[in-house]
Structure formats: structure tokens, C-alpha cells
């Protein structure tokens, strides 16, 4: 694939990613990951200290699916709407194959009473690769600047 068509496919993938979270279609959101994909939400203070502990860590799509199944069936959290704003993504070839995808994000949360607040700011440092005709996430690393998490973190960033 040419660089231009990869950039286009990556932008499309990112659009789908935020749309499926923001419209609470988390089961379909899972379809954007490869089977071996990792999903990690890492506080920036841990990254800076070289410490590995995450806020969320799913190594493999099974764990990621467990997270969503748990969210739907076992967890209770603040009823809210999410709204992601994502910067233009930068795409670079990954030395190990596929491409690296990076972007900044802001997530606003709105209560069911219509009150909005800036919930989280940070950056995505992802890897994507082609699976058949589709570009999918093989790694999603969310670096959270807002690591003093307000209230709780239930739905994915």
C-alpha cells in the first residue's frame, strides 16, 4: 500500500475507533483489534519513571473482550456520554512490520443531566497492520496526562 492510502486508512480506522466508543458500540469497537492486540492505558507518571503498572492492561483480544463483558454485566459506573476529540494522526512505517500511528486525544464526559467536563487528555502511541483487506490495531497504548483520574475510568479511552 502507498503511504497516502495507508494514511487514509489510518484516519478512517481512528474515526471508527472514536465513533464506536462515543456511541457506546463497544462490542463493535472490539472488531477494530487484531486477535493478538494489546490495549494499555498508562499513566504518564509511570511512563516517565519507567514503571510498568497500567490503569487498564489487556494482552490479547480475549482479555479485551473480558473487559467489555465485565463492563456490561458486572461493573457499575457513572452513567455518562463520552466524546473524543482526536488530532490528525501521524503514520510511520514500523521496523517490525505494519505502521506506527500516533495522535493526541481529549475526552469530554457529559452526565445524563447535560453537564460536560474535560475528563482526560493524552496521546495514542499505536501500531496498526493489514489483516486481509482491513487495517486493524495490533497495539493501542494510551498515555494519560490526566492521570489523577476524575471519579473513575470505566469506558475505554
Amino acid at each position, binding site marked *: 500500500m502507498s503511504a497516502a492510502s495507508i494514511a487514509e486508512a489510518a484516519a478512517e480506522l481512528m474515526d471508527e475507533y472514536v465513533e464506536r466508543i462515543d456511541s457506546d458500540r463497544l462490542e463493535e469497537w472490539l472488531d477494530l483489534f487484531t486477535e493478538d492486540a494489546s490495549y494499555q*492505558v498508562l*499513566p504518564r*507518571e*509511570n511512563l516517565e*519513571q519507567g*514503571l*510498568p*503498572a*497500567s*490503569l*487498564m*492492561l*489487556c*494482552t*490479547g483480544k*480475549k*482479555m479485551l*473482550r*473480558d*473487559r467489555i*463483558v*465485565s463492563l456490561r*454485566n*458486572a*461493573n*457499575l*459506573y*457513572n452513567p455518562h456520554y463520552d466524546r473524543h476529540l482526536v488530532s490528525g494522526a501521524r503514520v510511520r512505517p514500523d521496523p517490525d512490520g505494519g505502521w506506527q500511528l500516533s495522535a493526541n486525544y481529549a475526552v469530554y464526559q457529559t452526565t445524563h443531566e447535560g453537564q460536560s467536563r474535560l475528563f482526560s487528555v493524552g496521546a495514542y502511541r499505536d501500531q496498526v497492520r493489514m489483516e486481509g483487506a482491513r487495517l486493524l490495531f495490533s497495539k493501542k497504548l494510551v498515555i494519560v496526562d490526566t*492521570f*489523577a*483520574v*476524575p*471519579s*473513575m*475510568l*470505566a469506558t475505554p479511552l
Partner: protein
Amino acid sequence: MEQKLTADSPAAPEVRWPRPDYSRVPYRLYHDRALYELEQERIFKGPVWNYVALEAEIPNPGDFRTRTLGETPVIVNRAQDGSIHAMVNRCAHRGALVRRETRGNAKDHTCIYHKWCYGLDGGLIGVPFRRGLRGQGGMAPDFDTAEHGLQRLRVESYRGVIFASFRRELEPLADYLGPVFTRHIDRLFAKPIRILGYQRQRIMGNWKQYAENTRDTYHGSLLHEFQSTFGLSRVTQTGGVTMDARHRHNLAWSKLGTDDEAEFSALYKDNKVHDSKLRLEEPSMVKFHREFGDGTSLAICSIFPNLTLLQISNSLGARQLRTFGPDEFELVFTLFGYEGDSEEMTRHRLAQANFVGPAGLVSMEDGEAIEITHRASAGEREACSVIEMGGGGEIQSLEHRVNDVPVRGFWSYYAELMGIEPEGAVR
């Protein structure tokens, strides 16, 4: 400087406890600004040992961390001789924050404003232009640097867990903790630990609602459905609540694999508690590797006033509670494993970090439970919460978990320190 209660201390606002056993708690206690301000003096700066940090976070001379006790900013550091010091992070000159970084290594602490410089023991070692310039200006001749250091706290460490107190006269740390809790710290800190990272959570509620939450085993398997759904912790397991003699600290514990599957299913069904046939696709995450030899798989250890030591399966951590007014507090989780852990065990602990913190599969609900309690009780000052699961009256340790008796223990010690005990108060 010693904080003493004198005739000048503000009087405690009058609190009317309907019952002397603290089985009714007026909602006003979670909202009143005057009470909050008094708590800073009588609880956090009172006759208590506040949890500050773990020694493993400041292993080398010069290493420092900034922390918050109640709402007071504090520096904790290791001096060149290896000794540990904690002092208020506020310049003795104009009250500026001296150390703005959250961590680092330093030979001294210098305020940016007028460059007053303090040693690692908090003593004032430098005042620029103290003697003036060309015979003009400067501090008064009788200015004594020895009287203008950072406010120093008394510090004691038990098995690498550092505590500090604003009070000079106070029982030694080991006596304050008591045998149940020194034994529990011995259990968790028998081997050198390795810090795995931090998680932080800001909750829009009152800090005492969190103190109650960690002492309330009744909610554990009801609110945190992940635990019962996936078999981590259920009230049918062997467990209990163990307090110190003064009922200020509490250890809530349970043992995996000590209950009967059929009894559990029937009970939870009868009580309309979620009992789905859900299974995890990756069950290795919830596996419990026995590592302490006692079979305890869940241990929530609350040390008055600001520490929770937690073991949820193989996820280990220390949580520091910080207050930001009556309507907001922060939890800072320090997650750890052991230096001797295999790579596989470290991976397992990192996977089980999913259980805890603001995104924790078995803890995210606490934030919501506290926020909705705080929201709904905000306008109601005389009505009370009901705390009598496990009975009222005497406060005592129990060998079961369908109770919230340790919550009354918290209130009894809180009321004593605040000077607001009811007539005939249970202790």
C-alpha cells in the same frame, strides 16, 4: 512545631449523634466545612501516625517524594546518612511551596521565590543577602536560622512503610499499629519490594466516606459484582473483620476456595444478587497464586487515618488518602511486587493491576458509590445513615463478613479525636 489543643483551638461544631454506638451517622458530617477544617487540626495533625511513603520509593541518599497529609504538603526524603526525614513543604519565609517536583534527587531544597535553602533534615542553611549588601539591608542581626527551618514531622518506619506525625508526644508507631497490624505489615513486607507504578483517583466526595467504604465488608460482593461473578471473593467464604483494641484500624480478610459452590449460587439467587453464568475468556487473570502461606486471598487493611494496604489476589498496593476540602479527596495507589518475583509473576501482578484503581474491575464502583452518596446527602444535614449490619452496641471483631461494625469503630475513634463523642459513647 507542636500543635496543641488549647483554649484558642476552635470549638467543635455541635454534632448530635442519635445513638452512642454510632449506628446512626448524621449526613452533615460529610459536608460541613467547619468540621473539615477541624479535622485537619485534630485528625491529620492530631495524635496519629499518617502514612507518608514506602522506603523503596526513596532508596538512595537525596531521593525525595512530595506527598500530602490531609491537605498539608509534605516532603519526605533520605539524607546522606540514610536517615529519613519528613517536613512540611512550605517555605518558612513567605509560605511558598519549596519543592514543586513530585520526585527527584537533591542535595538540598531551595525555594524559588527568594532562594531560601533547606537541608535534607529541613534545617535552614541559606538566606541570600542575609547580611545585606554594602552594609545596607539584610535580615535583623538577631535573626536565627535555627528557628526558621521547615516544620519537621516526627518520622518512624516499620518494615519499610514510612509514617509521620505532627505531634512530638505520641505512642511509638508499633504500639499505634498494634499486634494485628504489625503482623499484617510483616506479612506483606517480609521480602524487599519492587515498585510497579502508581494509579491516582480523584473522587468528588468526603474522605470519611472512603474510610467507611474500606471498613464495610457488607458491600464487597454486592457492589463489586465482578468479585462474585468470577469467584474472587464471596461472603460465603471464610473471612472476617479484625480491629485493634481501639477499633481505629481494621483488617477485612477472606480465603478463596473455602465455600461451597451450590450454597453460594442458592444464596446469591435468593438475595437477587447477580449470578450469571458468565465466564472469562482469559481466566488466568483471576488466578490466585498462594504466596503468603495463610490462604488469605483478599485483605483490605485500613490504618487510621490515611492508609489502606490492599491485597486482592496477587495485586498488592498501598493507598494514600489526601483531602481537598469536604467535597473532594484523592487516592494515590502505589502498586508493588517483590524484587525476587519471576518475570511470569510480575506479568501476573501487572495483569491483576486491572482489579484496582480508578479503572479497577473490582474497585471502580467505589468511586460511584461515594459520589452518589455525597450528592444525595448534600442538602440533608439532620438525617442519618444506618450502620447496624452485624448488630449495634459493642464494637467487636467478627469471623464473618456480613457486617459493617468496623465503620462504627472508625466513627468512635474519629469522634474521640474530634472531641464530639456523645454521652455514654461506645469505644
